């Protein structure tokens, strides 16, 4: 794991030196790979992307299939969001190919048996390309992409339903993310909604909250965490119905300061309990809950390496970047605009 990262770092440094000599304001700057247990969280705000030229540039890097999909959508805002989501994924993932120089357009994607999108490595020429794992989520006002790196050396755990091609890098870590607007309104009554979809323990927790606004916020937080877990599992809503597992929020981390590592205790941990412990052992999953720009909740869920499963107190490091592909990146550190509000998670600074 570390050797791969060092190799990439070395090559990136040389590469960057070359790049600085050329004005590269409109091309994609390369980015360091995430470390193990590190999640790179990229997000774009559709409201900030207005230039038609830029949108056309995004359209050019999509595959013909994706282009057709977007053109058939009805509604300018809906098309724009779908376009930004695909552009974000392609541009972001291509930036990690520091020694491969892959064009965003040449990335190939496929879906697993349950419809979860994955990067298709069959077409990668250079096998030293890192095994990246990603997940997207979008709301009307924010589109996010979480990236993590799988370990090529750890034991391979395969889902027996998939039939992989003979040579393939096996991904161990899974990631799922979900974002929702904080101020979201539900059409149904909060408790009625919870009773229909959430597990008994979660319903009980929500029932104990008296203030309806607070209850709705807790419901939205729970929803994002549950959705992130299901997306990380990658088998769809029906394989893990929301009623079949419980997410416990733990104590909230109060205050806006970036909490030093020694102050994050197990009490802040978000845990999941499933009814089927054999298939999805709950100790393998780690969660993080963030508040972005005071307006969105973002949940991140990753599956731990089975080697580290016993050591639960190591937090996830999340590197937050607000971006407009081909235009600019902004590293968002812990501040008013980004707060960790749950889970063993730390917001790290970006090392480019």
């Amino acid at each position, binding site marked *: 794991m570390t050797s791969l990262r060092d190799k990439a770092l070395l090559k990136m440094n040389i590469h960057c030196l070359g790049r600085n000599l050329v004005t590269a304001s409109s091309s994609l700057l390369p980015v360091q790979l995430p470390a193990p247990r590190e999640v790179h969280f990229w997000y774009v705000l559709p409201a900030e992307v207005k230039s038609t030229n830029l949108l056309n540039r995004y359209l050019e890097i999509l595959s013909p299939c994706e282009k057709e999909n977007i053109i058939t*959508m*009805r*509604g300018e805002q809906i098309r724009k969001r779908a376009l930004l989501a695909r552009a974000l994924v392609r541009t972001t993932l291509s930036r990690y190919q520091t020694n491969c120089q892959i064009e965003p357009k040449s990335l190939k994607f496929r879906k697993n048996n349950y419809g979860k999108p994955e990067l298709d490595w069959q077409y990668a020429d250079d096998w030293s390309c890192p095994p990246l794992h990603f997940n997207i989520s979008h709301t009307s006002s924010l589109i996010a992409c979480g990236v993590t790196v799988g370990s090529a050396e750890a034991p391979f755990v395969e889902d027996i339903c998939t039939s992989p091609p003979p040579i393939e890098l096996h991904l161990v870590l899974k990631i799922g993310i979900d974002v929702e607007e904080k101020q979201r309104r539900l*059409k*149904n009554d909060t408790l009625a909604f919870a009773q229909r979809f959430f597990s008994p323990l979660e319903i009980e927790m929500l029932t104990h909250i008296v203030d309806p606004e607070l209850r709705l916020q807790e419901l939205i937080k729970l929803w994002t965490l549950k959705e992130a877990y299901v997306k990380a599992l990658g088998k769809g809503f029906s394989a893990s119905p929301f009623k079949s597992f419980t997410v416990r929020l733990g104590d909230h981390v109060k205050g806006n300061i970036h909490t030093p590592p020694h102050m994050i205790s197990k009490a802040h941990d978000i845990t999941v309990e499933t009814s089927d412990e054999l298939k999805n052992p709950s100790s393998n999953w780690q969660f993080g809950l963030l508040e972005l720009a005071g307006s969105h909740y973002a949940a991140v869920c990753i599956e731990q390496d089975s080697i580290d499963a016993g050591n639960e107190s190591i937090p996830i490091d999340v590197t937050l970047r607000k971006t407009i592909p081909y235009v600019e990146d902004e590293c968002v550190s812990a501040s008013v605009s980004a707060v960790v509000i749950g889970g063993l998670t730390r917001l790290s600074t970006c090392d480019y």
Partner: protein
Amino acid sequence: MRYRKQNGGAKEFPGDRSPMCRWKRRVEDCVLGIVIHHQQNIRKKRESKRREEGRDCSRSMAASRSTLPLIKYLRVRVDALPRNSPLTLAPTVFLRRFCEEVRGSFLDKSEVADRVISCVKNFQKVDPAKVTPNAHFQNDLGLDSLDAVEIVMALEEEFGFEIPDNEADKINSIKHAVDFIASHPQAK
């Protein structure tokens, strides 16, 4: 005695098991079935119309129950047929098809489509002009996973049955919703 006696009408004796009485009772049952079914349809149409106009559902159901008294007693005049007539069996078969229990309880697809569309149009986030019979929740109406789940809840309330999670997962367009509900016998 099962039926009210009319003044000057022919009297029925209790336990009268003649073929004529049996035949008469069978016809009356079937006609009663048709009338009740017709009343239920009228009631459903009124409820869905009221729902569209935004009135409270429970109020309208209670109101319709009180304004449409169920016909409990019925007298049907039946003339005796000759014993060996070839028609003795055919009318029974013909009328039995209209009986409630034989016909089954699947809803009519166009009625389901109307109700599903009006249910989705009620969503604040949705532009009613875009809700067509072929609309896709995500691609055409711009709804996300939480919205889709709320739509499933609204459909369950409208049609009075619980949609299992593995089916709810597949309902991502109006057409899917209509096809599923129209083929589900528990839909009301």
